[in-house]
């Protein structure tokens, strides 16, 4: 009798589960989502391949985009319903830097996953400045201070020192700037009149779409770049460059890409938005579960030509917990790609605020803004409310663990301690202006860039 009851209960709860999964009344079921050929688009590929989208009643077409600009325009025009985006893109679009449009993010796609690579020639010139470990291999993390004398040589000879990043408001732009500035090099400012970002620069940074980075460096147009995987490991495999630092070594567990949708889409299709978020959370869980046990399978998915398309062995390097610096110098990097643990998918306001502080630091935000402005802008774009609603449904349906989500978070991560950041300057999202003023290179409160000069 007892067992029958138990079975009955179990069946009824099963029925309830499947009913719950179908209970969202979807406003839009056919969606087109954009992505760039990078390993951190993995949650999208996984949600598609493992049928998580279909479980939610969504029929998704995934489309690779040529570059970040095309992708952003697609989301703004509605040609794409959503996309794998640079964290800076929804923020910049919402505050009107570049194309103005209100874009939100209910889901953060990953932590870490980028690196900075220099060409073989530059590495040869840099290497003598890098301290060695006992076994003769260079000691990591490598500071840009090792690059500074090389850049100086170039400048003395009157030659510009060019490096690449993927988009003006990309994580990579801010990361390479952070690294250069931490090593005493000036990466240059933006101003309202001059949006090249090269005002007063020692190192000239310019935009190249991620998959073209290795080819552009091979052609000699740039001497190095900051980009996501697999395009750093590709440089190693192709024997054209050496990654010098990963973003994990610059700032442990730094926030990376987000999933962006237009605010209008979220408003008109609230249930679809939740369903999308649910599918993506499930994909992220799958990517990290059992100590990254599924990563090998994820690598096989990503290596298909319609997703990232690079050779599986290149993608596997970083995805399965290793990173190869100089050819043969493979080091463990278990947290190089984080998709779910450490609350990676929760859209923290403090992450948004860090991006905004960097926009201000380099002049993309021309005027000093109040701390409140940072909080309000972050809350306008990052939407933990949608995220938690989706997470709650997953927990209720038995597809996620209650303990895995920060239910009571106020949206601010604990401040990053000095020891987790390469230049030992701690970051606290609650005090954006004080943080900006604590960075040695960059604009401070009250300063603006006018006619190529810092004023104030």
């Amino acid at each position, binding site marked *: 009798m007892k067992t029958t009851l138990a079975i009955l209960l179990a069946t009824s709860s099963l029925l309830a589960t499947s009913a719950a999964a179908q209970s969202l009344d979807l406003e839009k079921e056919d969606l087109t989502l954009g992505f760039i050929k990078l390993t951190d688009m993995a949650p999208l590929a996984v949600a598609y391949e493992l049928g998580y989208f279909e479980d939610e009643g969504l029929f998704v077409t995934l489309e690779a985009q040529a570059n970040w600009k095309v992708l952003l325009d697609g989301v703004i025009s509605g040609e794409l319903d959503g996309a794998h985006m640079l964290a800076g893109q929804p923020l910049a679009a919402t505050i009107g830097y570049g194309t103005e449009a209100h874009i939100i993010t209910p889901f953060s796609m990953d932590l870490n996953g980028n690196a900075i690579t220099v060409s073989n020639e530059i590495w040869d010139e840099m290497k003598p400045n890098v301290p060695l470990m006992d076994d003769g291999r260079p000691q990591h993390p490598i500071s840009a201070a090792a690059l500074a004398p090389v850049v100086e040589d170039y400048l003395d000879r009157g030659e510009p020192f060019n490096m690449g990043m993927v988009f003006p408001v990309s994580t990579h732009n801010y990361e390479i700037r952070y690294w250069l500035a931490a090593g005493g090099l000036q990466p240059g400012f933006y101003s309202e009149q001059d949006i090249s970002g090269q005002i007063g620069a020692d190192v000239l940074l310019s935009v190249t779409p991620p998959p073209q980075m290795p080819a552009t460096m091979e052609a000699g147009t740039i001497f190095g770049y900051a980009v996501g995987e697999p395009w750093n490991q590709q440089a190693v495999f192709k024997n054209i460059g050496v990654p010098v630092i990963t973003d994990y070594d610059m700032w442990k567990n730094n926030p990376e890409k987000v999933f962006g949708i237009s605010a209008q889409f979220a408003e008109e299709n609230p249930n679809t938005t939740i369903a999308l978020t649910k599918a993506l959370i499930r994909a992220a869980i799958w990517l990290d579960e059992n100590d990254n046990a599924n990563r090998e399978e994820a690598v096989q998915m990503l290596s298909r030509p319609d997703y990232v*398309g690079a050779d599986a062995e290149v993608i596997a390097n970083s995805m399965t917990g290793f990173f190869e610096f100089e050819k043969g110098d493979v080091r463990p990097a278990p947290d190089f790609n984080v998709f779910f643990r450490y609350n990676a998918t929760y859209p923290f306001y403090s992450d948004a605020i860090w991006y905004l502080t960097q926009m201000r630091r380099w002049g993309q935000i021309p005027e000093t803004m109040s701390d409140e402005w940072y909080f309000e802008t972050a809350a306008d774009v990052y939407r933990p409310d949608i995220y938690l609603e989706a997470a709650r449904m997953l927990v209720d349906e038995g597809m996620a663990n209650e303990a895995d989500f920060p239910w009571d978070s106020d949206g601010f991560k604990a401040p990053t301690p000095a020891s987790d950041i390469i230049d030992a300057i701690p970051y606290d999202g609650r005090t954006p202006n004080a943080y900006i003023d604590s960075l040695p290179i960059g604009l401070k409160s009250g300063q603006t860039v006018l006619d190529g000069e810092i004023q104030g």
Partner: protein
Amino acid sequence: MTAIDPSTLDIEARRARRFARITKADGWFRVLGLAWLTPILRAAAGDNPRAQLGEVWRLLGVPLVAIGVFVALWATLAPQVQTSLGAVPGPVQVWEQVGELRQDAVREGEREAAFYERQEARNAEHIANGDTDRVRDRVYTGKPTYYDQIWTSIKTVFFGFLVASIVAIPLGIAAGLSVTANAALNPLIQIFKPVSPLAWLPIVTMIVSAVYTTNDGMFSKSFLVSAITVTLCSLWPTLINTALGVSSIDKDLVSVSRVLKMNTYTKITKLVLPSALPLIFTGLRLSLGVGWMVLIAAEMLAQNPGLGKFVWDEFQNGSSQSLARIMVAVFTIGIIGFLLDRVMYALQSMFTFSNNR
């Protein structure tokens, strides 16, 4: 006894008829690029085999040898060029990728079938639950296969070419008939003809995005952008050749039309079009060729579906198979371009009596 046996005469007549038929078929063989069939048939029909063999050698043997030499050169030279993606692929690797792409298409087909199975199961469940309004039949959301990409490109080029022809032929006739119209059109033709497709593309993209705002209309935006770019670039050869064909009509014919007091419509349909047709078709052939080249470039730059996107995606993938796959696409593009030209040539031969190109 009469000198000639009637049966021999009969055989002779039959033989002559057979040769006449072969000569007639030869016209078609030429159109289809199978000219080498004629001497083989002639030899089979009893013509001097030696002379025919020479013809076969010239028409079939020499091209085959040339292709063989090309492949051999390619196979020996390619491995000597080292790129960062490995050696340049030779014919064997490229052929392997043809198989790979076919495998991809087969796999995608299986996934598609599975998708429809799931859909049917879902729909059946909805019907069983009485939710008939939730029953949906949707098209598979997976990746386009290589064959899909080819088909998309062909559809796009024909659509763009059709629009170009509809615009260019009437304009060309007007320019050919009237000196004033010609004076008006000429500067525009001279200025716009040399514009590269890559310059048109941003303009077309912006305008289509602004004008064609619906997202679920008959055409997708990317299709329209590619097709209109093709139209803008492939317009000119047809226009110029039509104008030339129309303006160079025999003056006597024009005088006749005056004597007969033909109205403009009759004059165009009965007189202008038939005599200008060979040149119009020459223009159309050139246009289709230009359109095909332009389309691939447009697809590459705008990431619109089709062979161009396939090439660009593979370039971006940078995997060890990418170069070979791009080469497969290059041959596909070349062969399809050749076939398109043959189709137009065949049409031209059907509609015009003289085959002067």
